């Protein structure tokens, strides 16, 4: 597949394309084209965005299957119509909006300016494309962690009360929790929200023991101007390419961790709830537990091996591990950048 980076930059001293580049270059080895266009050029022709986009498209060499990746320094109100037009194109893949306030701004432009040929320039742009994909990762991660933050605190609280032998207080806390769960966000519903964040619509919601699709989860959007949000899996696919994501150990671990499996890897991207018992089952069982029975040694149905104290410790560990697994995926970029 051919890749085409279109870089709409400001015409300032800091944002100068590399000296060798005369608007566009193509690197045969990696089948990548880089086009640098000053934003002012779009603003100057702001009256006909379709024509404008077609003019720019003429500069793209390859007509084969193409992925268009766009960097732009802001949207510049007057150019919004143009970007809308661009984002409608079938080949359009990603729009990254960079800013002078980004920590990456200076190093990115330093590297762009220093690129000595098209191949190096394409590498630099690829590197920074990946950097900008970290932001949606982190947004999803923070939402995921917030899902379980309150549960983590209550769990620590209960465990400490048990350690202090304050069983009645622990029971009362659990009773309050159950009341809250009944009227709002139960832990198992939070886990389904996490599923949605991870794989979006690629799960058969409301079928085969899978609850209804949560409708209160928002996901980071791919297009800057409008469009639907993408799940973590989609963002990972943007970063690594779909085939590589499915081989990614870190992704596999996250899926297993949240009790999901990838069904048909080659033909169709479908996921399902894993048959082996996991956190979802435990949370469901916990929600059903009578608060009078709530105690450190209680064994809940389906989890007969360990007492509740161990199981709750396990919830804390599970939460920590979830955070670490997200971090590992984010750190792939850090690893790449340091190598």
């Amino acid at each position: 597949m051919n890749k085409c980076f279109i870089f709409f930059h400001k015409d300032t001293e800091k944002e100068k394309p590399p000296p060798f580049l005369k608007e566009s270059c193509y690197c045969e080895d990696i089948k990548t084209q880089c086009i640098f266009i000053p934003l002012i050029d779009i603003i100057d022709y702001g009256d006909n965005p379709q024509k404008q986009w077609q003019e720019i498209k003429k500069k793209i060499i390859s007509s084969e299957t193409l992925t268009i990746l766009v960097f732009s320094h802001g949207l510049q109100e007057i150019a919004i119509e143009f970007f809308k037009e661009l984002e409608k194109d079938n080949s359009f893949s990603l729009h990254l909006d960079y800013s002078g306030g980004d920590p990456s701004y200076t190093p990115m432009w330093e590297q762009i300016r220093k690129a000595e040929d098209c191949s190096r320039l394409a590498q630099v742009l690829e590197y920074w494309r990946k950097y900008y994909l970290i932001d949606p990762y982190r947004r999803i991660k923070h939402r995921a962690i917030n899902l379980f933050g309150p549960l983590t605190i209550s769990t620590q609280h209960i465990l400490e009360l048990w350690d202090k032998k304050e069983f009645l207080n622990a029971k009362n806390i659990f009773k309050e929790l159950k009341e809250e769960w009944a009227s709002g966000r139960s832990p198992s519903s939070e886990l389904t929200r996490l599923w949605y964040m991870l794989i979006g619509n690629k799960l058969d919601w409301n079928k085969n023991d899978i609850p209804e699709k949560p409708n209160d989860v928002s996901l980071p959007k791919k297009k800057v101007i409008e469009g639907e949000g993408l799940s973590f899996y989609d963002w990972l696919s943007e970063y690594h390419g779909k085939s590589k994501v499915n081989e990614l150990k870190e992704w596999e671990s996250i899926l297993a961790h949240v009790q999901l499996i990838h069904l048909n890897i080659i033909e169709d991207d479908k996921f399902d709830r894993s048959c082996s018992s996991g956190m979802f089952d435990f949370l469901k069982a916990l929600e059903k537990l009578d608060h009078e029975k709530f105690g450190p040694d209680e064994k809940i149905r389906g989890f007969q091996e360990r007492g509740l104290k161990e199981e709750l410790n396990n919830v804390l560990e599970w939460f920590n591990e979830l955070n670490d697994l997200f971090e590992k995926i984010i750190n792939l970029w850090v690893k790449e950048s340091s190598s």
Partner: protein
Amino acid sequence: MGKRILVISFPEYGKKLINYFNSFLNEDAVDCFSLERSFFDDEPIIEHQKIEDLFRSISIKIEKFLSEKPIRPIIFFTVQVSLPSPNKTSVFDVWDPLLIYPDERKRPYPKAVLLSWLILAYPEVHWFFISEYTQDREENKSHLTNEVPLKGFKKYFSSVFEPLFDPLNLRNSIRFILTNKKETSYIPYRIFVSSAIDEEDPYAYLHGYLAYRLMHRSFLVTTEREMKTLFEEKANPLPFEIKMVFEDMFLNFPDRTKEKLSYLEIRDNQFARLKNVNSRIFVTVGHKYNTDRYYKNKNYIQKLISEGKEIRVVYKPSGGMYNILDKSGLLKEYWEKCKEEWRKAKPKQNEEEPGGHSAPGRLLVIAEKLINRGEKIFDEAKAVQDCIHGATLALEAQELLGYRTPTTSLEAIALRHKLEVKAECMFYGMEHNIDVKNRIEEIEKEVDVVAQWFNPRVKKRAALNAKMGIITEVMRIFKNYGQFDEEEECLNYFRGLNRRWSLMQPGFKGTFFWIIFPIRWYVEKLVGSLPLFILALISWPALLGIFSAWTRAKFFVNEEFKFRFWDHVMDSFSTFFGLQPGNFPTNAQGKILTIILIFLGFIHLGIFISHLYTLITRR
């Protein structure tokens, strides 16, 4: 007692945290402020106004929380962030307080921008955020951090150092970002770390503040537990090196478990990291009741000096902040640092354009918040620590403004000096006589630096006006605390300013200018110094006596008596002090000199007696 911890979170989370905190703190110590969940979920905030509103609403809550005067207040903000650090290579959060996206840009604001405003605006708060990592990283092993993992975060809350002097490098890391921006490159950045060790809070705060003024981030150590965290050999490694320490010679921590800490050698063996500190300032009352300890310490200090350590001994009580700096051998360094700041504050050619005289608007808002709270502290301060707290807020404001935005900068300068002076006056560890000379010098220079940002036509007037305003406030504090000599010194300086001010009044240089101005100058000099006044009282009759002899003035005593040299001098004295001719003048010279002597005597004695009366009644 007020609440000590404020949780900022979304409702479900906040409720759980309050219950949890209350269970282990065993008191009603936690308050909560709820924000919408979307903020914590990193939902994009596009409108600038929204982030401004968030800042405003959070600030109101924090100020209410702080108004209850919690000790080492903690705010636990349940957002996941990676903290700024000059050493970190991969940072995703944007901690730039000056970042602004126009709304039409449609770019989400990083939440770290809002957090950076809060961190800069509330230096007295120990901030905790949720770490992006669950595992303790190498640098966090000592629990000296502002980011906590969710599991087991409790332990971090029990080892909180006084955050006022930024020991954990949080504000400084945000400043580092500002320092590297062209428009705010004037903002100072603190590289060094120091510690103030004293079981008495006033001393610890005062020394910590002085270190902070010397561009050191500073740890206050008032308990043995804190001492162990920083200086015990087996304690977790620290991600910084402590360069300077102010140490009380006779340590007696309230939680003391270790004996003989007042023997310096034993102290250094118990807290071995102290041996690595290059510059140590021992503060002591210097008594010799325990001669064994005295000589052992003396010998140990000699040993440290021979090993190349910079050691100073400062005796209590001291004569104010400048005096401590002087005795510690740090005053020169202090002035050098000030000069460097003043040099950076000089307007450059291209900054003369409109708006060039101002600090960035965001920093101005933060500085105003700091100043307002500082003013409140000034009015309510009951202890030295309160004054130091307020002075630090004013100092932060002053540094963020960098002498730009003149009116607000002057407010910050005035407030800092007022609070420093109040701290000096309140402190029982100070000598009766406080160093005012250096303070006046600093006020004079600082105001001159700020005045550079005024229009050249009003520059001098504005500077004089500001100096008079600040010194009047300082003088009032000295008066309230019965520091008469210090008040008098300020008054003398004020008179000089007032004279210079009157020179600038339109139409002042009229007919009588050259008569009135020197007289006014002369009178100011007289009342400014009692010895000088006495010298003038002796000199005038003596000189006019000599002049009388030289001009052959004639006086009638009887027909046989001939006036000689000493008779002229004697006559001059009796006329000057008696306010009537000692002997009747018989020629023109004698008559003129007699009139002059009576007039001068009347003026001098009148002023002298009223001045003496003032001195006696006010002492």
